[in-house]
């Protein structure tokens, strides 16, 4: 296991990457990206059994990760680059013409680490289930991880998938929901109150855990615990409480920073709060 201080350095550098990438093209989604930074940091450094250098689409004998809330691509790209999937210099091409780092993740340009397009919300859990079933058919005992947004849960397909995974005992699957309580038009409670998520997922037949998603130690402990609960006949769901925009104080304010870019001054402020640890791209 990695030292927490080392993980923290990684997370801080990822935050810098996120705000710099979004600032450079004045578009993209910093809020959800920053809020899920600790999760992706822990997942890629300490949880996933994976082989970045020899990435291939099938990912046999490896754990797989699917990002269903594809708009938080800046986070994913930064973590993929900094764990060795592609050169960090490529982060400078985010959202630019002829880039592999499309606004929303895609397989179209062949970016290592990405196994399916996402961006149209609500589809990632189904894909994760399919990949998990494929592993079972292949007698591959590795795991499939999925991350979704909480607003994303309003899509009906998520609940079709939830019902299927429990009904079919897809127990090599760990799905996490970014419960930041925010989406585009406002707080999730104001846009469409989803009630008691824990009770809902339990009623659908999932094993439900929860964690504070901006605490590296708690994220790691919970993901490790989730792993011990796989293979027991139930899919696993982690309700991850986060703060949208975490780590940049002025972005930690409701839903405002879901999908807007910082200006020059705000960039300087954000970077001052997150001093370089591993070197900028």
């Amino acid at each position, binding site marked *: 296991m990695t030292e927490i201080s080392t993980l923290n350095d990684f997370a801080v550098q990822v935050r810098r990457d996120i705000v710099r990438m979004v600032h450079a*093209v004045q*578009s*993209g989604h910093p809020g959800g990206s920053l809020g899920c930074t600790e999760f992706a940091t822990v997942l890629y450094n300490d949880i996933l059994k994976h082989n970045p250098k020899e990435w291939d689409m099938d990912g046999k004998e490896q754990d797989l990760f699917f990002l269903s809330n*594809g708009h938080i691509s800046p986070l994913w790209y930064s973590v993929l680059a900094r764990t060795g999937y592609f050169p960090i210099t490529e982060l400078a091409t985010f*959202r*630019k*013409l*002829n*880039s592999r*780092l*499309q*606004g*929303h993740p*895609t397989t*179209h*340009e062949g970016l290592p680490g990405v196994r399916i*397009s*996402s*961006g*149209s*919300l*609500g589809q990632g859990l189904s894909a994760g289930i399919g990949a998990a079933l494929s592993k079972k058919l292949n007698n591959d005992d590795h795991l499939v991880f999925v991350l979704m947004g909480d*607003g*994303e849960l*309003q*899509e*009906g397909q998520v609940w079709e998938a939830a019902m299927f995974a429990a009904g079919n005992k897809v127990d090599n699957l760990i799905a996490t929901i970014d419960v930041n309580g925010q*989406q*585009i*038009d406002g707080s999730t409670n104001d*846009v*469409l109150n989803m009630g008691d998520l824990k009770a809902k997922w339990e009623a659908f037949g999932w094993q439900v855990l929860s964690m504070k998603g901006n605490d590296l130690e708690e994220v790691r402990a919970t993901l490790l615990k989730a792993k011990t609960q796989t293979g027991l006949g139930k899919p696993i769901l982690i309700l991850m409480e986060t703060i949208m925009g975490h780590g940049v104080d002025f972005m930690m304010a409701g839903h405002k920073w879901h999908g807007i870019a910082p200006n020059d001054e705000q960039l300087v402020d954000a970077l001052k709060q997150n001093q370089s640890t591993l070197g900028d791209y």
Partner: protein
Amino acid sequence: MKKYTFSEKKDTRSGFGAGLIEAGRKNENIVALCADLTGSLKMDAFAKEFPARFIQVGIAEANMMGIAAGLTIGGKIPFTGTFANFSTGRVYDQIRQSIAYSDKNVKICASHAGLTLGEDGATHQILEDIGLMKMLPGMTVINPCDFNQTKAATLAIAEHHGPVYLRFGRPAVPNFTPADQKFEIGKAVMLNEGTDVTIIATGHLVWKAIEAGEQLEAMGISAEIINIHTIKPIDEKAILDSLKKTGCVVTAEEHNRIGGLGDAVAQVLALHFPSPQEYVAVNDSFGESGTPEQLMKKYGLEASNIVEAVQKVMARKRVLA
């Protein structure tokens, strides 16, 4: 060439927002639904003025289409709002069964159509929506060209009974249609009379067609320019009258070359007056991230592409003659 000027550039989605609120003031049966994109669709003013008639459904487009269909039972006129890909492909069967086949008076209003939404990339840039929607029996398909025309179209569809797909976009584009020009569903707008070639354009490509017309005039080519804002039902008479005069046509649209305006025009011509035609459209591919300007250039949707297509189609006309 008739001179076209504009005092400002405005986004067509704001034309929709302005039309929606005016339609709402005129007719209290108008209700609006949105799936967590109120600001992007410019529906916030309507939501504020008519909170009881604004329905926030959350990120649930299929549910939105079903609720809209149900609202018509009892006399409401629902306007749904989300991005064009989530207004069509995402919910095609809900539209097909509950709206089109059931003949419900729902107005499907779709922003961020085509490449010009820019950096979000191909997941959000639908180039197939005109084709999908025009294949549905009974569906009216409208793609206005600027702010004023989108506003007028929004008011016109409120008065029209039947399902409508209204397509508009994100970027600011020249607003040159006179504010008082009446919008007639199914009736093409003649922008410039000419004799050598017909250019038929829709949506954001209409202004590019005007620019192309100016360049062609400087080259001594007289272009007839027609704005087809209603792709279905298409104005056959306007197309045939023009082609009988010019004998060749270039169609221009921010859409896949398969299934869009070009094919609609080609069908009219194949049946009634076969003529050489060139397409300015996306060549059967997905889009990608980039600025709107970069994308229009890379995917061949510039005024210069129209000019080239005109030269090509006129050469084909000469060979035939």
